C-alpha cells in the first residue's frame, strides 16, 4: 500500500483543503478529468472457506486531474468533493515535483497525527484486555 496516498485519504479534511489551496498557483494549468461521488464495493475474505464476498458499498468522493502526462488522484470516504480534489492536488504536486518538501512535511505531520490517534485508540482497547485462569 502506498503510505502517502493512504495518509492523504485519512488526513484532516480542513487542513488538507487549506494546504492544497496554496499549491494551486504553483501547479499552473491543470485538467480536471473527474470530480464526483459514488460507491466503492468492499469485499471481504471469509475465514471458513477462503471465499471473497461483497460486504457492501461505501460512499466515496473521487477526483482525477492531469497536468501534461502526469496524473493526480484523490479518493476519500463520504461526500466531500473539495477534500478529494485537495488530495488529488497534493498527489499531482508530489508527482510533478511542485513544492515537494512542503508536501512531504504536510504528509509527515498528518501521518504523525493519525498514528497518535491510532495509538490513543489502542491504549484504550488495551485497558480492556482480560487474562483468564481456569480453576
Amino acid at each position, binding site marked *: 500500500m502506498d503510505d502517502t496516498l493512504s495518509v492523504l485519504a485519512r488526513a484532516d479534511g480542513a487542513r488538507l483543503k487549506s494546504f492544497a489551496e496554496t499549491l494551486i498557483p504553483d501547479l499552473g494549468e491543470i485538467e480536471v478529468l473527474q470530480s464526483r461521488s459514488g460507491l466503492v464495493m468492499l469485499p471481504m475474505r471469509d475465514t471458513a472457506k477462503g*471465499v*471473497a464476498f461483497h460486504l457492501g458499498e461505501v460512499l466515496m468522493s473521487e477526483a482525477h486531474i492531469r497536468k501534461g502526462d502526469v496524473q493526480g488522484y484523490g479518493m476519500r470516504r463520504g461526500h466531500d468533493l473539495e477534500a478529494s480534489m485537495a488530495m488529488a492536488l497534493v498527489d499531482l504536486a508530489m508527482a510533478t515535483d511542485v513544492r515537494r518538501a512542503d508536501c512531504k512535511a504536510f504528509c509527515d505531520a498528518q501521518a504523525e497525527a493519525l498514528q497518535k490517534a491510532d495509538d490513543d485508540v489502542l491504549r484504550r482497547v488495551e485497558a480492556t484486555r482480560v487474562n483468564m485462569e481456569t480453576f
Partner: protein
Amino acid sequence: MAYVATRGGERAIEQSERLFREEMGGFDRDRVEEVRKSLPYLIDRVMGEASLYDEDLAALALAQTGGELYEAVLLLRAWRTTQPRLQVAAPIEQDTLFTHRRISAAFKDIPGGQVLGPTLDYAHRILATDVLQGASYAPDPVEPADTPSPAYQPSVSAWQADNDLLDPPAEDPTKGNDIPDLTREPLLFPSKRAHTLQSLARAETGGVLALGYAAMRGYGQAHPTVNELRLAEAEIAVTHPDGRQFSAGRVKVSQAEVVDKKGEKLGIGYAATFGWNEVKCIAAATLDLNSPGAEKGSATEEEFFLYHTEGVESSGFCIHFKLPHYVTFQSSLDAMRDAKAKKAGQSKSSDMEPAE
C-alpha cells in the same frame, strides 16, 4: 381480471403522509448530526442492512423516517441504485483488521489474547431514570493502558488450521468484478458461497437472530461455540489510476466464527457485516454452520433463511397485504358461498328417500 378504482384517494394519501410526518416535525442538518452522534449502534445496524456505508446518509434516513427502520433501509437501498460504482476494492484480509474487540468462547489463550473492547456485556442493566428528573448522565472516562494493544491479529481459525483442528480454507483468487454480486445478479440455489455471505451481511438483524436462535435452541444440526468474535475497522484498499494501491479510509466491520465438533475436526460457520453488530454476526454464522445437509424447509436450510431474512423484500411483502385486495377477497367469499350452497344442496338431497 378486475380492479376497484378508489375516488378521492389522492388528497387522503397526501394528508396521511403529512399526518405521519407531523409527529416528528421538520428536520435539518443539526438533527441529522445529533442522530449520527448519539446513536452509533443504530447507525451501524442500518448501514449493515442497507449494505451502504455512510454514517451521514444512515442518520439522514433515520431522521427522515422517524426511526421506521424498514423505511430507512429501503430509502438507502433505493438511493444507492442512483449512484455510480467507482471501483471494487481489494478484499479485506483478516490480518489487516484494525481490531477494537476480539474474544473467544472456545479458547481462553488465543494468540494475541482477548480484548473486550467496547461492550455492555458485563454492565448492570439499570435504566437511568434520574435523567428524566433532570440529572445528566456522563460516563466515566476510560483509563488508557501505558502500551497500545496490537492492532492486527490473524483469525483464530488460522491458528486452529495450523494445529490441525480445522481444514485450512482454499485459495480463492477471485477479485474485483468477478466476485459474485447479489446487487447485479439473482440469488439462485444452491447458492454460491459469495452470495450466501453477501446476503447474510445485508440481512435484517431480527430475522437472522430469530432463525439463528431456532438453530441454537436445537432446531438445527450443530450447536455453536464462538470461536472468535471481532469488532474492527477495515481499510478500503483502492487503486490509483497509475496502479498504486492505497487505503482510501476505514469502515467499521464485525465478524464471527462459530465452531462445532464434526468428526475428527471442527466444523466452522462464518459471517460478517458492516458496522458493529455482533448479535447479527453470531446468529448468521450459526446459520452458516448449520446449513450443510439441512432438511428442506427447515430454518437452517439455505434457501429458507436467505429468502426470509432479506429485510426489504420480507417487509415489503408483509405490508403489501394491507393494500386493497377487494377483488381477490370477494372471489374467495364467492367460492365460500358457492361451497356452502353446494353443501346445503347435497344435504337436502341426502335427506330425501331413495324413491323420491
